[in-house]
């Protein structure tokens, strides 16, 4: 028998009891819609986080002092006996394929202008920040390229600081007091908004050497290195490791690549999406029970018909396949309907709450469709084999 004929016959019986078909398919559809929608939300979160992370720039490897052992806060960032220095940063800069090297230290300080004071995050860095992190200067310029120890008291401010401290005047050329020292504003960064819940505009940038002395420390918190796109990251990490071990005598630092972080984050969110998909499949399973029930009823109602088919020369296999097809078409239809309504609801959610990230996960959508059809066939299998096992004479005699 031809496959098209199987589906033709299946469709004819599904069309015959329309309401029943719709309701059974609806059961599957709800399950599929749940999976599609939930994974879209999970995928949206994943996509969002990735997007946020890539805002920090690409191809970045960062080096932090101290060897992190157990999870938790590495005390080494706060204080350590083996400092990571500006000289380390400069030395790493000279490695092949390293384009930029940003030594960094961060702290919180009050910034004063006249009688206005604001506590903010003060970052000690160097002139290479705009080429390393995905940040752009809006007005003026970024810190100049000067030897670290001779860096002048220049400051570049974030947009929030500009708004708070210079509400009416142009900030360029004005002076600010940071930790009791005078700094001249030479640039304002472009507005960046929130990244991972941090206000990226509530930051000021000063030369790293100045920051080290402000905080009275001898170690950087981090060195960020950007390498040439397309080069083997592992090789570059090895070079960095070797160079620092040469300089420090031991491996007293930790190297993390951005890919690592994104990879870890991605897999965590991936697991989350999978769990959510699993929870959604409970409904799919219940929908499968629905198909099982309805197919059992259908077999019961059509015992005579099964007898007739056998009398007409249908084999057991053909009878089994007929009912299996019916179950598969039933669940397939429900699956398509569920998929479409899942898309619809996802789109609607995105439309109503634009802040909610939604991202259709096609792999899960396709998997859910396959699971739906397989569920349908498994659920149809028992009734179908029951139909096929019937003796034709008994089937014809039944009332």
């Amino acid at each position, binding site marked *: 028998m031809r496959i098209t004929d199987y589906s033709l016959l299946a469709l004819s019986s599904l069309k015959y009891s329309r309401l029943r078909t719709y309701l059974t398919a609806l*059961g599957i559809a709800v399950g599929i819609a749940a999976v599609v929608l939930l994974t879209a939300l999970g995928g949206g979160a994943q996509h969002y986080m990735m997007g946020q992370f890539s805002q920090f720039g690409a191809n970045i490897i960062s080096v932090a002092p101290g060897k992190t052992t157990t999870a938790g806060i590495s005390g080494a960032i706060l*204080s350590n006996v083996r400092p990571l220095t500006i000289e380390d940063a400069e030395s790493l800069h000279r490695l092949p394929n390293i384009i930029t090297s940003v030594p960094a230290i961060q702290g919180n300080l009050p910034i004063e202008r006249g009688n206005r004071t604001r506590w903010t995050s003060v970052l000690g860095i160097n002139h290479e920040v705009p080429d390393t992190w995905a940040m752009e200067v809006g007005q003026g310029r970024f810190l100049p390229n000067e030897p670290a120890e001779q860096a002048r008291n220049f400051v570049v401010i974030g947009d929030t600081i500009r708004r708070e401290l210079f509400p009416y005047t142009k900030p360029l050329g004005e002076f600010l007091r940071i930790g009791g020292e005078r700094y001249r504003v030479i640039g304002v960064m472009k507005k960046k908004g929130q990244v991972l*819940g941090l206000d990226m505009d509530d930051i000021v940038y000063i030369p790293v050497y100045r920051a080290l002395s402000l905080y*009275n420390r001898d170690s950087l918190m981090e060195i960020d290195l950007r390498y040439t796109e397309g080069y083997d990251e592992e090789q570059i990490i090895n070079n960095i490791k070797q160079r620092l071990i040469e300089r420090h005598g031991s491996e007293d630092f930790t190297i993390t690549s951005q890919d690592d972080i994104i990879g870890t984050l991605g897999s965590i969110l991936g697991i989350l999406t999978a769990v959510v998909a699993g929870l959604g499949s409970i409904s799919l399973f219940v929908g499968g029970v629905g198909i099982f029930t309805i197919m059992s009823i259908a077999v019961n109602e059509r015992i005579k018909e099964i007898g007739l088919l056998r009398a007409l020369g249908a084999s057991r296999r053909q009878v089994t396949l007929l009912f299996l097809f019916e179950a598969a078409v039933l669940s397939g239809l429900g699956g398509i309907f569920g998929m479409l309504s899942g898309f619809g609801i996802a789109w609607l959610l995105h439309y109503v709450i634009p802040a909610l990230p939604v991202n259709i996960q096609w792999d899960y959508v396709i998997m859910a469709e396959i699971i739906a059809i397989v569920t349908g066939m498994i659920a149809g299998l028992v009734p179908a084999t029951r139909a096929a096992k019937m003796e034709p004479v008994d089937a014809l005699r039944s009332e």
Partner: protein
Amino acid sequence: MRILDTLGFGKIALTANPTRTLLILLAMSIGVASVIILTSLGEGARKYVSAQFETLGSELLFILPGKRETTGGLPPLLGTSPKDLTIEDALSLKRSRAIAYVAPVILGAAPVSFASREREVVIFGSSSDLKAALDLPMAAGHFLPDDDPRNAASICVIGNKLKKELFDNKKAIGEWLRIGERRFRVIGELSAKGQSVGMDLSDTAIIPVASAEILFNKASLSRMIVKARGKESLDKAEADILRTIKQRHDGDEDITILRQDSLLQTFDGVLQTLTWALAGIAAISLIVAGILIMNVMLVSVSQRKSEIGLLKALGAPTRQVLTLFLSEALMLSIAGGIIGVFIGLAGAKMIAYFIPNFPVQTPLWAIAASLIVTIITGLIFGSIPASKAAKLNPVLALSDK
């Protein structure tokens, strides 16, 4: 018709088709059971986290140097600040009557070595108050002595993991370790117990705060851990801290205070929401089960047309037919719900058995809610077939074969 007769009628109809009835019960109970199990897990997570905070003591306050004006975002956990927090600041806080203990803390990392073994670990510079504030149990020896924290004694207390790594099973008390460039005598060993989220001290060495100042060559604290005298003193303790520090720092309120109880509340809120979300997702399957009930009831209405016609011919009013079918749907859904609750409770017990440290707990509201939802499901999805049955024309119903 009496209620009992109505139920009896339904029972006959349901037992006439045992497979069908069982399948509906299965569908319904899967939905309910998953609601119960998932909420049990969510509730368990909530209990687990609060228990963890509880062991830390909810009377704790953390004082961090520096502050940020923008609300939201991370507290300045790693930030440094020019107006240092000092050991003197810590000592001055002790004068407040709302405060029981103040542990000054300098955090840092340094290589710790013994014989040929070396390990880079987190170093806690602190005082005897740390033990009291965090309620740290000792496995052997003593904690730092209760003397002036400005004494830079060369003694240390090590976590149980660090002890294992450096000494294996040999005795550590009394041995001399090298931390950075200085030598310290081990006077105590922390027990593995009493560790909790965010406060894992097993791979650390604790030295007097003054020794840490020398080791790391700095005179500022990374943070202070304050324990209030009872929960009711928390607000007063917070106010006292702010006032004292402001006074000492020339009028600058340049610190951030994190309260254990508000942290707990945040976590609690998040986990509560999560539990609700889980229950919601699981409840979708209840809708699917409801659709199945409706579907099967519709089938049985059309299969029992002549029976309905007969009932009407015998003088059953429309309302009675409606009640008959509705009660059938309700019996199905409630029975499914009750079975589901039992399966769910058993599942939760099983999870509790396999993860003994995790306090799986089925919230009563989940049981009540899922039973109520079950009844509503039965009513809603049963009403359509029931009204269809009730509206049947008896003449047509009887003539239909």
